[in-house]
């Protein structure tokens, strides 16, 4: 048993940490969030140069052959800086799908430009009626000769406005919520029949509603075959969950440190408010929630490569923990900062908002409790 990081992993952490603290201070982050595009392409290019975009990919594709732990380390550090650039959709979700399930031709066609920072991808898997059920798919893929024709609407596609390519889940056969008959398709966002409505999200990101109207894609745009889409999607989402758990522990650590520091320095009634036992215990609870979250984040990242049943249970459990802890830590950090915690100009509220969205992203506590119980 070993919970320590290798020397390479520690070097990776140090590198990301110093890059973020040097180049992604809170003011810079807010300028990026408020900019027209909402992300910084220069930062993305620097991620490529640092090798962050290559981390999880195989060496033959030009990657660094990293595993879930490397992704975890990177996401935690990006979380500390509230980085909005699309590491999750491009590298973890879509890159992960291509890496694990893409054909050789697909990998060779797409991974180099992802690793090089030239292409941004987004995973279009939510639907307006689907809530958190990945199989609840109305979007249809109809076989027509050698092509598929896609029709439907995908909801809250994170990173959608920046994406060049989308991976879209669509129903090839079966009933609306059937597990079988789901395909994943690579769709060029500029393809004829694709339209988007772009918008900012509460946590400083950007997302799109994507409408597909008779979008024709070649059969080789499908990942694997006409029946494996859901399994691949579930696996990708579990990888996404493991990644945002890591991001969330980055947020919680920052909030806990900021709260302790604030309570040490903020004086009321002639003493630091941190001297009040009721607030001390609250901060102890925040600290314990953080530690439990770290444990569950390590756990899920170690189990990501196990079989589907073990992976499902691990991801569902971790997501429940992070959802509850993130909510508690976020709310209490705001409360203990008093009015200051409510202001747009302090980073506390922004960590809180991102943690709130992490609870919803890929399914909330209720959803994953049920999934955990059933797994």
């Amino acid at each position, binding site marked *: 048993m070993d919970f320590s990081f290798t020397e390479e992993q520690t070097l990776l952490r140090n590198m990301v940490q110093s890059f973020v603290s040097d180049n992604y201070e809170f003011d810079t982050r807010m300028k990026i969030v408020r900019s027209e595009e909402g992300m910084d392409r220069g930062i993305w290019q620097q991620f490529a140069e640092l090798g962050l975009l290559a981390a999880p990919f195989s060496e033959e594709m030009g990657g660094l052959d990293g595993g879930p732990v490397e992704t975890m380390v990177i996401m935690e550090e990006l979380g500390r800086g509230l980085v909005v650039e699309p590491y999750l959709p491009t590298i973890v979700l879509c890159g992960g799908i291509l890496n694990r399930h893409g054909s050789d031709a697909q990998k060779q066609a797409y991974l180099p430009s992802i690793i090089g920072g030239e292409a941004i991808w987004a995973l279009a898997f939510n639907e307006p009626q689907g809530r958190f059920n990945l199989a609840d798919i109305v979007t249809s893929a109809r076989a027509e000769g050698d092509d598929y024709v896609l029709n439907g609407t995908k909801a*809250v596609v994170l990173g959608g406005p920046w994406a060049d390519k989308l991976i879209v889940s669509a129903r090839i056969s079966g009933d609306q919520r059937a597990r079988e008959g789901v395909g994943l398709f690579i769709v060029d966002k500029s393809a004829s029949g694709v339209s988007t409505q772009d*918008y900012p999200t509460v946590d400083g990101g950007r997302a799109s509603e994507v409408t597909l109207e008779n979008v024709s894609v070649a059969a080789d745009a499908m990942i694997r075959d006409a029946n494996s889409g859901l399994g691949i999607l579930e696996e990708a989402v579990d990888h996404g969950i493991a990644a945002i758990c890591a991001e969330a522990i980055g947020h919680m650590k920052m909030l806990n440190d900021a709260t302790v520091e604030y309570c040490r320095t903020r004086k009321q*009634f002639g003493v630091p408010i941190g001297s009040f036992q009721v*607030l001390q215990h609250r901060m102890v609870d925040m600290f314990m929630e953080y530690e439990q979250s770290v444990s569950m984040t390590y756990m899920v990242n170690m189990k990501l490569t196990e079989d589907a049943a073990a992976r499902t249970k691990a991801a569902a459990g971790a997501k429940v923990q992070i959802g509850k802890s993130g909510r508690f830590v976020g709310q209490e950090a705001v409360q203990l900062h008093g*009015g200051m915690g409510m*202001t747009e100009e302090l980073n506390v509220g922004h960590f809180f908002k991102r943690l709130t969205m992490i609870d919803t*992203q890929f399914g909330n506590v209720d959803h994953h409790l049920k999934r955990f119980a059933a797994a």
Partner: protein
Amino acid sequence: MDVDFTPEDVAFREEVRSFIEENYPKNLGALERSDMSKEDLLAWHKVLHTRGWVAPSWPVEFGGTDWTVTQRYIFNEESARYGTVPPMPFGVQMLGPVIYTFGNQEQKDWVLPGILSGKDWWCQGYSEPGAGSDLAALKTKAVLEGDEYVVNGHKIWTTLAQHADWMFCLVRTTTSDKRQDGISFLLIDMKTPGITVRPIITIDGGHEVNEVFLEDVRVPAKNLVGEQDKGWTIAKFLLGNERSGIAGVARSKKAIDRLREIARGELENGDPLLSSADFSRKIAELEVDLTALEYTELRTLAAESQGQGPGPESSILKIKGTEIQQRITELTMEAVGNYAAPWVPQLDVGDNYLAIGPDQSHGVSQTYFNTRKTSIYGGSNEIQRNIIAKMVLGL
């Protein structure tokens, strides 16, 4: 002991309901509060004024009503049921009672009518950067020079000061060992030279609160309420009144109705979310807690009607009321699922702005974020617990 409504009460409810339905400005219905101009926020206030219903809890001689506790309860319930914009609390709930309790005749004559008519918008100059929960630490200074006070200082979290004509303000007139001594209660015209209002944008993107800077602001000495240096008593009296309205039971009921409506429209595996056992259980738990709070508030109101002022027990109403409000907004956000994510900008809404997702999901996240303030303002919930521990339990 009973909580039945008399035939008179039932008739009164009918009267209130039809008055609201017939007179509520139709254009206000479609607006979120954050979109409202000063005129919008005052529109219903002005209609209520014509009917004499702006300040039901004031004594009749000052322009209030002679309603029973039950009637006031019915009025609040009907107002919340319809979703009216309530009169701003700063004048009606906070300052009015201070003036008719501590003010002199001249002050009663000029302050109270302006509150009732809506001519004067008041804001509350209490908190300062160094004086939040510890209000007595306030440093804003007023020095008497001839027949004027010269005020210097810095107020913060001043709600809707951007609309205010006047501010009631706690200032330090004497420095003494006991910090509660030497505080005075001043009425300040916001148009006076030396006052600067700076907006504070909150995490929901809204502009409700402000900083107010006072630099050599000259205030006529006759604007002092009560005695100089004895303002702490007034300050505490006002805080007690502020808390009494804070439970928000009727509005929480309405918010739960809306939550249920949203959960009926949201689908989970093809079925309404409302039919999910987990989700409906959470709503039920909220409703049970709200019912308990409602009866606690009714007991407080009944005691008040027998001449007992709002005591430290009103801290229960503040704590439980705000906790319930926060849980409702949290569950409402949870109900809309993925559509909690779109950010609806409250400032600088452009012409090309298009709403995302189903109508019912709009703004629920912002409301959740905004409502986090309720356990902080009006004396944080930690302070309220201190009050109960000290004043009720004698610890």
